[in-house]
């Protein structure tokens, strides 16, 4: 089953180094996330690893095969959903899948059976013969994902696959990808949706300015920033945030009807909140101590001038 390995990848466009000495490996059946702000180098990294672009330096192995030395064999083992559009809207879902199946050398029976199974899973079987220009964005993206899976690849690359989709399409796609992953497909996912990455990925790689700045499991990344704790509190009535300024030396953020007080000492902060409560005759609706989210870690790691 699919292993992915990138060693010392470099890609330059003129004076700009889009990918700067990027190395990582993804194990068999691993779900791996690639996170980073816009322009960080995620899409270029995916383009290098799917054979769309050639690196200026470095090596890539897909399922044990050197992508640069043997691109045809390596590409047979990968499926990719690029960032945009990428299916033929003049063709139907069946015709798109048939075309992709031909590129991978599937027999007529295999193409038909796998297309049927995928389109049923993706709730598109009833619309299989409609041209895709009549589909919604979410439905087209489902077909796009199906095209990447028709040859049952051991390695799957997904570049922002659920960006801007409706909830139903997003769930259907995520469920199918999780199912493929359970069956043994290694997945590399790039996404802006940190929640999604946190839920799906066993490890994430945070990339900025073309360089890897952190690579670990979401939980370990959060723990590394555990000192950035916060207390979240909400009261029975709206209060001015200046009332809470004495409770923490850290920042105070308003999150809907809640206040989030960043602190290194939650116990002391809670005591001070209790004093404010008593002094102003307030009732606490909820209070909890929270650690940093993956999003907090992401922002922390990628903040600063871009």
């Amino acid at each position: 089953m699919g292993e992915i390995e990138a060693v010392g990848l470099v890609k330059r466009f003129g004076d700009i180094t889009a990918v700067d000495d990027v190395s990582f490996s993804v194990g068999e059946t691993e779900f791996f996330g690639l996170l980073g702000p816009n322009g960080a180098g995620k899409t270029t990294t995916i383009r290098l690893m799917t054979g769309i672009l050639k690196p200026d330096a470095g090596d890539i192995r897909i399922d044990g095969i050197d992508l640069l030395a043997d691109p045809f064999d390596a590409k047979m083992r990968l499926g990719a959903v690029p960032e945009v559009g990428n299916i033929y809207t003049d063709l139907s879902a069946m015709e798109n899948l048939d075309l992709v199946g031909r590129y991978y050398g599937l027999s007529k029976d295999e193409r038909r059976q796998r297309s049927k199974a995928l389109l049923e899973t993706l709730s598109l079987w009833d619309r299989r013969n409609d041209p895709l220009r009549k589909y919604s964005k979410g439905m087209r993206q489902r077909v796009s994902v199906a095209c990447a899976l028709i040859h049952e690849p051991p390695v799957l690359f997904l570049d922002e696959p659920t960006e801007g989709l409706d909830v139903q399409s997003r769930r259907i796609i995520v469920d199918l990808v999780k199912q493929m992953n359970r069956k043994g497909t290694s997945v590399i996912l790039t996404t802006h949706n940190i929640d999604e990455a946190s839920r799906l990925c066993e490890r994430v790689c945070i990339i900025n300015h073309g360089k890897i700045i952190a690579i670990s499991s979401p939980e370990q990344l959060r723990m590394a920033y555990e000192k950035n704790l916060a207390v979240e509190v909400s009261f029975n009535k709206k209060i001015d945030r200046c009332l809470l300024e004495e409770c923490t030396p850290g920042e105070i953020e308003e999150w809907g009807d809640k206040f989030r007080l960043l602190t290194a000492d939650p116990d002391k902060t809670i005591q001070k909140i209790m004093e404010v409560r008593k002094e102003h005759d307030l009732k606490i609706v909820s209070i909890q101590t929270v650690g940093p989210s993956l999003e907090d870690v992401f922002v922390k790691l990628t903040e600063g001038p871009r």
Partner: protein
Amino acid sequence: MRARIALRSVFVTTRKDIKIYYKKAPVWIFGLLLPLFLFLAFFIGRDLDTRQYFPGFLAMSLFFTASSVGPLIIPWEKQAGTFERLLSYPVSLSTMVIGDILAGVAFGTVISLIVAVIGAAFLAIGVADAMMLFVFFAVGNLCFAALGTLLSASSGRVPSNTMMLSALVRFPLIFISGVFVPLGSIHGAGAYLAYASPLTYLVDGFDHSLGVDSFVPASIGILVLVLYSLLFFGLTIVLLRRNLMKGL
């Protein structure tokens, strides 16, 4: 294994192009109707020997049809985002371009054969050298389909830009290549221009095959068209590599 995958990628690309792109209006307008109207505009109301000019018309028709879709495929693919995806399949730039060229060859062959059959039937055109006619059909289609893909190679994702470039290159060629003015009547600088144009060798080859006076030995004409095909293919790959990110 690699050769089999490469060969498959060529033919699947050709099939894809034929299925998707040859139904599109610009292909029929710029590939078939335009040369037909040009020919009619030249001939109607003038007392010209149609049989003498028919090889030129046949060559022009082949030239326009074989090179009509090539300039549009890559910009259309880039615009739709399918170009990037295609490159992630087991294909290479070279096999993709060869597939596109073969699709142009198929379109050019079908349309120019129809023109040839109609010409033979209505104008009583006789064939003087059937073997050479076949060879010139083949290399002519190959050469101008390759020219079509070359025209698309420097472009981004806007098909209308490519159409402008395509018109800029293709229209002057028909006026310097012996289509409307017989090659024997072109002198001086015009003759140098004519012999630099690949279309000249096709017109002259058809002249030879259909029993009209020709000026270049057929074997030289074939060689020149093959060399131009290789040049266009090579330049397409170089330009595509250089402009790969343009419009992605």
